[in-house]
């Protein structure tokens, strides 16, 4: 297996001087679905931002396919942030066209098929959609790409349980087996069934990286149960 993401001795300090990520080493290989799990403030989002080139490490380096984050890596990563980041005045179709223009790997037909399945009108303006529907639109845009790395930050937090099943099915159905999917969420039990591997992060450092199978076999617990045990307050 070749590595897709490599973090070498990565430290990120914000203006308060306290490191959000400290001397972190992590390798993510191709073709895996990985859960990035940790309590609030553990450094998950900081790590994700650095992989996406939205933050620069204070020390160390993050490499995607062997190169530093930049336009080339951004063309290969499909990122879903936990924020609603689309301009409210635009229609869904405008956004689909926008993604189609900038990402060569974007598949418009796939996006429209998913919009249709979730009964989202392409002519609807984003400002008129509910928060949950906006999140569905964002997820559709991200999963309509043939990316090498998908990074989903809380992809199902804002949607109703009925839609969660559809979304998880959508993720699996549209996921290229050669690609890597990194999911960051607190709803572990909902996504556990699709994970190959988990990464536990606490205080900006990786405390565990192992396969889901290992946790089940060695600990005799589900990932959700094990997470609760490890991060019990």
């Amino acid at each position, binding site marked *: 297996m070749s590595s897709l993401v490599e973090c070498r001795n990565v430290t990120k300090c914000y203006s308060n001087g306290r490191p959000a990520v400290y001397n972190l080493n992590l390798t993510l290989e191709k073709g895996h679905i990985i859960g990035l799990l940790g309590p609030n403030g553990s450094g998950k989002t900081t790590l994700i931002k650095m992989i996406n080139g*939205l933050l620069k490490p204070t020390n160390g380096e993050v490499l995607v396919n062997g190169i530093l984050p930049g336009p080339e890596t951004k063309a290969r990563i499909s990122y879903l942030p936990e924020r609603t980041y*689309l301009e409210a*005045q635009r229609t869904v179709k405008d956004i689909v066209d926008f993604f189609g223009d*900038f990402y060569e790997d974007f598949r418009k037909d796939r996006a429209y098929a998913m919009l249709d399945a979730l009964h989202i009108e392409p002519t609807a303006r984003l400002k008129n959609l509910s928060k949950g529907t906006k999140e569905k639109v964002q997820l559709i845009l991200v999963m309509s790409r043939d990316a090498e790395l998908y990074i989903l930050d809380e992809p199902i937090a804002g949607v109703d349980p009925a839609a969660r099943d559809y979304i998880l099915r959508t993720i699996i159905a549209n996921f290229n087996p050669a690609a890597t999917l990194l999911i960051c969420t607190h709803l572990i039990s909902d996504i556990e069934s699709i994970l190959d591997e988990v990464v536990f992060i606490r205080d900006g450092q990786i405390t565990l990286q192992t396969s889901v199978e290992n946790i089940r076999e060695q600990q005799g617990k589900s990932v959700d149960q094990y997470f609760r045990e490890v991060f019990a307050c």
Partner: protein
Amino acid sequence: MLKKLFTHEWKESWKMVTLFNVIVIVFTLIGALAMTNKNWAEAMEENEWYAIIFMSYFMLYYFAILALSLATTLYFFIRFYRNFYTDQGYLMHTLPVTSNQLIISKALVMYIWQMLSGIVICISVFVLINGFIVGAGEDVTIWELFAEIFSEIEVTPMVVAVGIISVFMLIGSQISAILFGYLAISLGQLSKNHKLIASIGIYMGMQTLLQMLGSVFQIGFNVAVTNIEDVSDGLVIAVMLLITIVLFAVDAAMYAGSNYIMKNKLNLE
């Protein structure tokens, strides 16, 4: 990618800025038509109400033009801030483009709209003055007056040089106005809290500082010119060239500052 960014920025901004310009055009046409059909100079002498209407119109017209300039500038600064430093930044900064391309595409669209708005304002003023002249029953239009003035200017190498340098100074100062705003907004993002307020504070502070420096330079220049008995054409050209070079150097520094912050110090909430 720059072309795509430019196209999208244009598509997303043209409606609002066109609306600002259309308001000024409509305002101008109402005034010009009213003045063309009435001799306001005579009417004001006969009835004071005409004077009040005339003055009110010009006050409103002045504010409309001021609002057009301000609204255009503010609109594009807000777009820059929202697109790059709020949640929308998560989209813009994960596009497969460089920070240079992001800034240049925005600056180009803003520059073109500032030029277009400037042209609209100039034409509007001419049309109004022309309406007043025609309404007063004069046999000449403003266009003929201008043609006469320009025909009297003797085209010497000095006039040509001053004209060319002035065009560059105008372009440089327009670019300055854009990059100045971008730098203030970008510097504000380095603040820990209240980033927008910090941006506004930095903008106002930098403006004040620049005005003070400008005044000092102006006083120094005036003193120097007074003490020189014969101000040669060469000296005038040299000073103008120096100002233009400094202007473009400042533009480059402001651009580099914004680009550095966007590339290395980005910190979206």
